[in-house]
């Protein structure tokens, strides 16, 4: 911080400062300092008629004059008593009349309410809640088939390699983009916020994973930073939090769209299992190919062409399917079973619908299609001049036919 003292006296000054100028300068200087929390014991508490509180905060070696202005005093639930140990939030200033430094307090919390971190954490959580950032309806669904996944974590940590390993196994046809940030230490909150901001400027992302591998409670501090939580809430794309700690839920977990206990679990939530999706596609293809292929065989040149293609496709799918059924079965987790059920339902529905709707089924209901040798469908009486030869396609094959006249 670069503070400029507003009291530099030029060498050739014409006159000394007035007392008022010096006090005002000192006040201006002190009031540039940031808001801080101070821990101390209250003594000499008194209330002025104007509603302003005065007291001294002291510890064993020093004391600090404090003032609480009326607006702040009215917000506080009760007047503190002498001897109470408190955390006080405020900023330094100068009382102009007495020329005395004072601490202008806007919050007072008895230390009996808990450790300082716990209190700040609760306050941050309350602030996020007040702004609606914890509301369940804010949670966004993850994309079913992501093509590009951003990962905000340390480039050297286990989290990145865990995510890479899981995604390579389950969904290798995509892209993982590392957005590096230190995830512990004093710089971590700033670096994570910066990484999140950087990720927002990259167009291609479908989903973001933010987190780190397991750590002590202290190591998770960055993910309890209110600014980090707000940056997560502001993300354009859905965020999965992966702060490797089963027990403690961080602010980042609370605002994320989906919470995972570990980076590996986050990766499993981010991508479907390719083997499983392939298996569903294979069974759909088999289904379609069988039913369509059987009828198509006898239904004309165009359909035979389709049947050949489907036959080849079906054969290939069967091989792939049996391979994956064998290897994939053991690996299914509960969550991927649920995802699988969704896909399977959709694919089976499509397969059944396609089969039922096949125009070939119309033939089975007793209709016939008349076609020229070239395959063109004959629709009107004018298409059948006397003596014209054509083919009549019915459900189980075709017959040659000749028109005798209208």
């Amino acid at each position, binding site marked *: 911080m670069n503070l400029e003292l507003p009291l530099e006296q030029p060498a050739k000054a014409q006159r000394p400062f007035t007392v008022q100028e010096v006090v005002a300068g000192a006040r201006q200087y002190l009031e540039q300092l940031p808001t801080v929390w101070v821990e101390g014991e209250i003594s000499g508490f008194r209330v002025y008629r104007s509603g302003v509180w005065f007291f001294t905060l002291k510890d064993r070696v020093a004391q600090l004059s404090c003032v609480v202005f009326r607006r702040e005093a009215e917000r506080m639930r009760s007047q503190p008593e002498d001897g109470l140990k408190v955390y006080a939030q405020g900023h330094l200033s100068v009382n102009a009349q007495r020329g005395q430094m004072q601490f202008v307090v806007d919050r007072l919390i008895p230390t009996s309410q808990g450790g300082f971190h716990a209190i700040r954490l609760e306050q941050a959580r309350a602030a996020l809640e007040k702004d609606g950032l914890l509301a369940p309806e804010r949670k966004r669904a993850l*994309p*079913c*088939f992501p*093509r*590009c996944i*951003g990962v905000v974590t340390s*480039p050297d940590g286990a989290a990145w390699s865990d995510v*890479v390993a899981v*995604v*390579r196994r389950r969904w*290798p*046809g*995509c*892209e*993982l*983009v*590392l*957005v*590096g940030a230190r995830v512990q230490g004093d710089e971590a909150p700033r670096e994570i916020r910066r990484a999140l901001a*950087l*990720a927002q*400027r*990259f167009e*291609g992302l479908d989903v973001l994973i933010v987190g780190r591998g397991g750590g002590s409670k202290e190591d998770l501090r960055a993910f309890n930073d209110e600014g980090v939580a707000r940056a997560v809430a502001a993300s354009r794309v859905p965020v999965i939090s992966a702060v490797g700690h089963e027990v403690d839920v961080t602010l980042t977990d609370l605002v994320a769209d989906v919470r995972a206990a570990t980076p590996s679990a986050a990766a499993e939530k981010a991508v479907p299992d*390719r083997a499983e*999706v*392939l298996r569903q*596609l*294979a069974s*759909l*293809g088999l289904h*379609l*190919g069988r039913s*369509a292929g059987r009828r198509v065989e006898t239904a004309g040149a*165009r*359909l035979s062409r*389709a049947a050949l*293609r*489907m036959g080849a*496709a079906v054969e290939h*799918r069967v091989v*792939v399917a049996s391979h994956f059924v064998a290897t994939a079965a053991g690996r299914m987790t509960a969550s991927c079973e649920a995802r699988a059920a969704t896909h399977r339902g*959709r694919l089976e529905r*499509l397969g059944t*619908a*396609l089969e039922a*709707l*096949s*125009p*070939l089924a*119309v033939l089975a209901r007793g209709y016939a*299609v008349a076609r020229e040798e070239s395959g063109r*469908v004959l629709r009107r009486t004018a298409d059948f001049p006397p003596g014209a030869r054509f083919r009549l396609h019915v459900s189980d094959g075709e017959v040659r036919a000749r028109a005798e006249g209208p």
Partner: protein
Amino acid sequence: MTSKPSLQAELDRLEEIVRALEADELDLDRALGLFEEGIARLRGAREHLAAAELRLRQLRDAAGGGAEVVDLDR
């Protein structure tokens, strides 16, 4: 990114095809065409899944306040 339709797009199109066939107002040629396309879409979806190796990249600040990605070796 690529001109190939995404897996999501393939499945969405399959649903569209089903809806079109359900409407039952199509002539035979058109219906056959859609049926064939349905099969092709299935294959497209499969090819999507068969494709490619996992690609690892890193996002960095770029000059002018933008973001750039570079390939990671691994």
